[in-house]
């Protein structure tokens, strides 16, 4: 009984910082509809700033003062980010802003490394709260009790702010219908800035308040990000009580998981999320999403039409040029081009689902890595030849997509995205944990192409044929009746159904098709690298694809591969420099601000303005 209570208290204490960070993310999303990937970075900044302040300010007053100040300082940094980076792109297509926040992550990572150095910092202990209290003979740290006491006050303060003040009324109104709030004469920009300040301050507060339980290190931004997303989604996006309840549920379950199923540490959280979302598709306290119901943000998408003769000739010339790489370029040029081609197919498969189907997936790496693992497993255990493995990879990935799609498509919008993320993470932990079969994170090695394709040149041509073919196939699918039905389901699900289109089934097929195409890329990837590791299923891989699709331009047909090629090539070049993350981050932010419709979309517009392209319908 004593142990049970002590475990409960540990869970409640852990929930504290998690709730603060999650409530910030939830608020920001609720009002601005921005999925702030950089939220973990603000949490990390809170820890570093708090640490520095605690070194300067003395005693207990200094300690608690440092935590508060850290929150305020991080909030102000958030304001700078909001004004400089996000304000220019509010009118961009939905979710485009997450690309900007991704750039912010990279910038903050390198700046933190520059300012505070690489070594982990151990957080100072809270003055006067260093010991333990014995509750029913079980030791409970005093600081844990302090956290348990503080968190409800923060929650209550937030609740008061949101429900009882004028600011809160505006925030809630904006959460429900921000256009109406704007129409009623409220200055939206300052409302958004204010909410961003509050959200980031909460993240900073969370980072500083956990210092006595840990410290500050350079990996904490990504480490907390997934847990925070899970908490926000389980609670319901935009709901504060939901975030609190979810933080408590996750933290307490985690403590018991650690004690009774020690191996569960990787998956528990995601299992809980899947279960909750299956029964409550909008989280515990969430309401059905209203975003997008007033029509899409930005200008409407242009109808697509088959490429004209000039474009066809251009594409043929481009392919010919690619085919000449082995003759004109070096061996490394082939290797790099192979890498880029594979990534382009992966990006194009996500682009198809996202652009044509409006299905934003945060877990597309499940199918890329899935395909890679299917091929690798067959080679390792059944000595399957490369040719057959390359066919089995998309089949396996497609099958996984059929199953995962069936569950995920029960939800929509951000909840759909989070479910895909959860499944990608479940697949990742399965591969990671099941070491006997998958090799765990030691991966599967020595998976090389058949003898005829083992030279870099031949493999490059193989990749060129498969990837270019795959991208053309995806493009062709967009022009087929299936593509039209898919766009109809995206633009107006109700009207599409009234016309007799089974929207769910169409989306399901699209999901499976995109998954299989990602599997093709994954299969090629294994043979180009000779090995596969769980990294290929990681969230970071999914994000890579997501970023390039937005960078390339969602509302264009070629955005996926154009974004993929430019991003990979730029990254290959930039990583040669010391502070490449800073440079890449700034570059991404720059592209986002200058080209809010993505590279292809904005180039198209520029071409029209300069008179190079006479009519929008002519291009692509």
């Amino acid at each position: 009984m004593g142990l049970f209570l002590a475990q409960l208290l540990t869970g409640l204490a852990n929930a504290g910082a998690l709730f603060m960070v999650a409530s910030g993310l939830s608020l920001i999303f609720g009002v601005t509809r921005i999925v702030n990937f950089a939220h973990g970075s603000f949490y990390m900044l809170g820890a570093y700033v708090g640490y520095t302040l605690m070194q300067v300010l003395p005693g207990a007053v200094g300690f608690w003062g440092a935590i508060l100040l850290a929150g305020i300082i991080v909030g102000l940094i958030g304001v700078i980010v909001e004004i400089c980076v996000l304000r220019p792109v509010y009118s961009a297509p939905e979710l485009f802003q997450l690309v900007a926040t991704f750039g912010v992550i990279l910038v903050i990572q390198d700046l933190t490394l520059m300012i505070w150095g690489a070594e982990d910092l151990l957080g100072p202990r809270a003055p006067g709260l260093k010991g333990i209290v014995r509750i029913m003979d079980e030791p409970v740290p005093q600081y844990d009790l302090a956290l348990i006491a503080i968190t409800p006050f923060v929650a209550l303060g937030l609740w008061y702010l949101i429900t009882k003040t004028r600011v809160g009324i505006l925030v809630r109104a904006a959460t429900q219908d921000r256009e109406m709030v704007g129409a009623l004469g409220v200055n939206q920009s300052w409302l958004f800035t204010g909410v961003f300040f509050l959200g980031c301050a909460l993240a900073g507060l969370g980072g500083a308040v956990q210092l006595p339980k840990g410290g500050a290190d350079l990996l904490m931004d990504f480490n907390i990000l997934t847990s925070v997303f899970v908490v926000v989604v389980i609670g319901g996006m935009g709901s504060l009580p939901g975030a609190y309840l979810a933080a408590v549920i996750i933290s307490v379950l985690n403590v018991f998981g650690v004690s009774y199923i020690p191996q569960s540490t990787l998956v528990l959280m995601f299992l809980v999320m899947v279960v909750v979302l299956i029964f409550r598709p909008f989280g515990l306290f969430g309401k059905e999403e209203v975003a997008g119901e007033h029509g899409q943000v930005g200008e409407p998408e242009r109808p697509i039409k088959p490429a004209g003769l000039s474009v066809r000739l251009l594409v043929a010339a481009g392919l010919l040029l690619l085919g000449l790489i082995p003759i004109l370029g070096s061996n490394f040029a082939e290797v790099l081009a192979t890498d880029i081609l594979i990534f382009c197919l992966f990006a194009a498969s996500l682009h198809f689902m996202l652009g044509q189907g409006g299905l934003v997936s945060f877990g597309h790496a499940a199918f890329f890595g899935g395909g890679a693992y299917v091929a690798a497993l067959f080679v390792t255990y059944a000595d399957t030849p490369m040719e057959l493995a390359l066919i089995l990879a998309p089949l396996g990935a497609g099958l996984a997509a059929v199953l995962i799609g069936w569950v995920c498509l029960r939800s929509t919008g951000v909840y759909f995205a989070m479910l895909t993320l959860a499944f990608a993470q479940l697949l990742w932990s399965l591969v990671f944990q099941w070491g006997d079969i998958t090799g765990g994170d030691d991966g599967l090695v020595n998976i090389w192409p058949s003898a005829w394709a083992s030279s870099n040149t031949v493999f490059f041509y193989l990749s060129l044929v498969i990837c270019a073919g795959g991208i053309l196939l995806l493009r062709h699918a967009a022009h087929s009746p299936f593509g039209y039905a898919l766009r109809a389901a995206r633009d107006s699900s109700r009207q599409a159904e009234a016309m007799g289109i089974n929207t769910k089934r169409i989306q399901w097929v699209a999901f499976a098709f995109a998954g299989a195409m990602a599997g093709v890329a994954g299969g090629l990837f294994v043979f180009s690298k000779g090995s596969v590791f769980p990294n290929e299923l990681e969230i970071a891989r999914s994000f890579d694809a997501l970023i390039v699709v937005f960078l390339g331009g969602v509302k264009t047909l070629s955005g996926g591969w154009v974004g993929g090629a430019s991003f990979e090539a730029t990254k290959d070049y930039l990583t040669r420099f010391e502070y490449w993350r800073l440079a890449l981050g700034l570059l991404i932010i720059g592209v986002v601000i200058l080209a809010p419709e993505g590279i292809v979309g904005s180039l198209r517009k520029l071409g029209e303005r300069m008179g190079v392209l006479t009519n929008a319908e002519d291009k692509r």
Partner: protein
Amino acid sequence: MQRKTFLKGLIGAALLSGTAPLAFAQEGEPIKIGEINHYKRMAAFAEPYKKGIELALEEINAEGGVLGRPLEFIFRDDQGDPGEAIKIAEELMTRDGAVMLTGSILSNVGLAIASLAGEKKWVYLAAEPLADAVTWSAGNPYTFRLRASTYMQAAMLAEAAAQTDAVRYATIAPNYAYGKDAVAAFKEVLTRLKPEVEFVAEQWPALFKIDSGAEVQALERAKPDAIYNVTFGTDLAKFVRDGNTRGLFQDRTVFGLLSGEPEYLEPLGAEAPEGWIVTGYPWYDFSEEDAANKTFVDSYVAKWDETPKIGSLVGYMTAESIAAAIEKAGSTETEAIRTSFEGLPVDTPVGEITYREIDNQATMGAFVGTTALEDGQGVMVDWTYLDGADYLPSDEEVKKLRPSE
């Protein structure tokens, strides 16, 4: 006819002008080594390692380099991503003119490069990756490893554990391959040395996401006599803090794999655990008797104005090993370097090590000692250096573990 001869002449001239300076340049042209590491993702570990290499290069080149040519490392960042590392390896070997590869801290990246090295027949010296698979199950003739593997270091701690009275053991290790290997090896060796031990709890926190309060409660619940810890980095810091606060370590012996390395001990400051039996690197404690160790530490501090980490030592020994291998090979041809590495003896700060012919594993050992607090900083006391050669399985077992040869 005339046109053909003219072309031939042109080609001949081009060849001459191309090769002549090349042959001439052989004399002073640096020998390039491709080094791939996670300079951003794991900056705290990679930086000292790089500084160790640079110190060794300075010394080697001051004495005339290797084969009369300067030795040069090309450092590249792979973001901790195996696929990226493969791409960079190709570039280093085929475009930048590197003669062999080295690098990586993470085991998965090391295994990816090793697989490539075996396929393309390039020599790869895995300096830091600890996974047993690098030289055993996934080993190949072209991959060599410098550091004492997970198995070797765990076996050293298991030997120390067998000499204590503890019978009931609990383990805590990060939930990934390194943690699992480390626990399996410790269990295997300890059970062999002392069959009556029992393992009463196994905790597997997610790497760098430890819920230390919960882990400490779970360990306490099992009431072990001794704890075997494999966590490191921020996980270790949190585990130690919560363990100290809640009295987990009172009257218990704790064995800590790598816990004594400056990389992990230094950030803990005055909260470093006392009385743990650990593997590590006591650079602060070398006397005149350990002349070679002391010389290395002194020149490192003199050059960089900071104290060395274990990574610094490994980096230094990496460059030394490569220089020795190429010198012995007498050429920069891959096959020559590979055969030269087999059975290669290298003089290093920790004494002479040998790259074993049987599994390409170097016999570098580890320092084993007890942690203590001195001037508000954790240190290792009563340490000894254990030779890695004594902690490897028998040759028959190694042959079974290494299917590739």
